[in-house]
């Protein structure tokens, strides 16, 4: 059912893009980060540098392209949105008057929010991901000498540290069954893609390439992982099997492609791509 509704949403935009030709979803060119689909793929949220001194989360209808601020009531900086499968929870990084980046988990059904504030005054959280059963939120958290992946409950409590490795460990994303977490780590040098059990055990390395491999996102069916790679000398979106095999370049463009987000139907990826010097959201078909 999800796939059907998602397909309807995409077709309503005006037919699928031709093979290899991405569809440009935004046209303002402003700096953007971290798109994510919501409402079964009918809408898309992303972070944008919307006024000279603010980053905010926008929501966009794929049916008609209309856009609006997701939380217009706040002037605080909001970015890196993650949306629960049922759309009830939105987890984000938030900053206001201090160097700290807080995790905020909004319960849109109850109109409440949970927060997690790192103990270190200047520490921050980035890249939250909500478990498929909407019970935990994982995120990257700055720590002495590096970053570690941690999780909290939906109120922002019950902190659990999932990695204790050297380097930067971040960009975590739950598998569709919630049993595993894919993430980026520089523990062995530069950024590579790793996977671990949801409790932090059984870490396995999936990529071993020259240059950065980062921002991994598990496909809805759990069989593939999309990620950003600089192995060809440029930011490109690659797709590989969930075991790390058969990586291939989806975007193949001289300019930057980054921040892949799977459509719930599993056949398209949204990206933040730079084209002609502009940053916009694009939609790629995935064979």
């Amino acid at each position: 059912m999800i796939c059907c509704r998602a397909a309807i949403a995409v077709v309503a935009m005006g037919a699928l893009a031709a093979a290899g030709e991405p569809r440009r979803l935004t046209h303002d060119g402003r700096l953007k980060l971290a798109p994510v689909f919501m409402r079964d793929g009918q809408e898309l949220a992303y972070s944008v540098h919307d006024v000279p001194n603010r980053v905010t989360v926008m929501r966009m209808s794929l049916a008609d392209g209309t856009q609006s601020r997701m939380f217009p009531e706040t002037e605080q900086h909001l970015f890196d949105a993650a949306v629960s499968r049922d759309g009830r929870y939105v987890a984000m990084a938030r900053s206001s008057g201090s160097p700290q980046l807080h995790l905020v988990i909004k319960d849109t059904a109850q109109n409440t929010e949970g927060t997690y504030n790192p103990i270190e005054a200047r520490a921050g959280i980035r890249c939250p991901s909500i478990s498929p059963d909407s019970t935990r939120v994982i995120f990257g958290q700055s720590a002495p000498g590096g970053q570690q992946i941690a999780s909290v409950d939906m109120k922002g409590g019950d902190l659990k540290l999932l990695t204790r490795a050297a380097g930067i460990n971040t960009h975590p994303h739950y598998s569709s069954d919630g049993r595993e977490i894919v993430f980026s780590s520089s523990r062995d040098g530069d950024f590579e893609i790793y996977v671990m059990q949801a409790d932090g055990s059984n870490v396995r390395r999936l990529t071993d390439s020259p240059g950065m491999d980062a921002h991994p996102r598990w496909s809805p069916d759990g069989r593939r992982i999309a990620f950003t790679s600089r192995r060809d000398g440029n930011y490109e979106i690659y797709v590989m099997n969930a075991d790390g095999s058969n990586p291939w370049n989806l975007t193949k463009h001289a300019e930057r492609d980054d921040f892949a987000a799977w459509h719930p139907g599993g056949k398209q990826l949204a990206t933040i791509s730079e084209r002609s010097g502009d940053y916009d959201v694009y939609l790629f078909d995935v064979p």
Partner: protein
Amino acid sequence: MMLEVGSFKAASCAGLSRRAFLRAGASVPAALGLAPLASALAGEQAKAKSVLVVWLWGGPSHLDTFDPKPKAPQEYRGPFATIQTRIPGVQFSELLPGLAERSHLFSLVRTNVNFSGDHLIAGSIGLTGADEGPGGHPPNFGSIVARQRPAQRLPTFVSLANGAIGDGRGPMKGYGGGTFGQAYDPFMVSCSPEGKVEIPALRLIDGLSPGRLDDRALLLGELDRVRRQADRPSFAQWDEIHQRAHALLNSSEAQKAFDLSRESASTREAYGHTAFGQSCLLGRRLIEAGVPYVQVNWSRLVEVLFPFSDYGWDTHAENFELLADWHGPILDRAASALFTDLSERGLLESTLVVCLGEFGRTPRINEIASRDHWPQCYCSLWAGGGVVPGRVVGSSDKNGEFPVNDPVTPATVGATMLELSGISTAERAQLRVLEQGRVIHDLL
């Protein structure tokens, strides 16, 4: 025409308050260069007819840009891979592939040092060569050029910035004329990501549009009214400034130079539609038009993850995310386009380009996975204007903490820039500026 003068909000004239009058008087410099204020001494011997400073305010991490240390311990090296440049044995961070590819166009100094870890102090020293003395702050390198080599129909010293360069405590003192006086402050211009150029200094009279400035009768009437409101000395200063500003408005050379819409779409795309990218393009246009000294400042309001910390490359927190997501790609695209553009237009030979910030950042990653201020060692790029490209001058130690040889001070940076601009040691001594600075001969 994308040139916008000041911020004219209404077609009707709302008059001019005394406060606004004084503000305008204090903010508009004679660096407009419309009337020579000193004898033009330089010229024939100058290898650099123009200087373009790309000022990376905030202090870029040298380890994550031009001096990576892939063999350093984990707590130093950071998460980025390194890539080979065109200079044998020299690597850059993977965030800068365009600049690595163009490394044959510039040389690199890896032993810059500064004498303060405070932005305002280090920034001022970095742009003047010395700290504040009893008589005030020394002049910006550009102010020295403005005094010695005034342009005739264009501003001599233009600073491209989205607001004053400074931090939460205010602007840095070394941004302008210093002991030379406000007459040698830079002509401030801002440029939006869309390429809209604004000249805040020409916000002379609220509500007076550029079109209405051409209405001589209206202008004179307004000036008469202003004259009645203001005290005479201030008016005299303001009147001269206003005349220069007005002359600039009517200068076809200036209007062309500031008009980015005259560039092809492909050229504007090459620089990227960011405030920094379009500012670099505007800097190239100004150099091409004959402006002797342009300072392109890393645009404020790029890294806005923290609303209170809008200070360019000052990445105390989220250093690696910010550099990978925004700063690295934006710098690489804009600076690559700038070097290519200057080279292809034949401008690089006569234009000295220097790219640097006020300091580097701590090689050892801090307690929140980022990097703090580090004036003990950082990098600068040098190109054109007599600089031999493809060289690396000096080296840092194994972890990028200290120079192994030949520390390059801000005074040395300034002396080298001025020497290549034809402002000799003797002239500098006469002006009592940068007397102790030596020249980086390894670049020449």
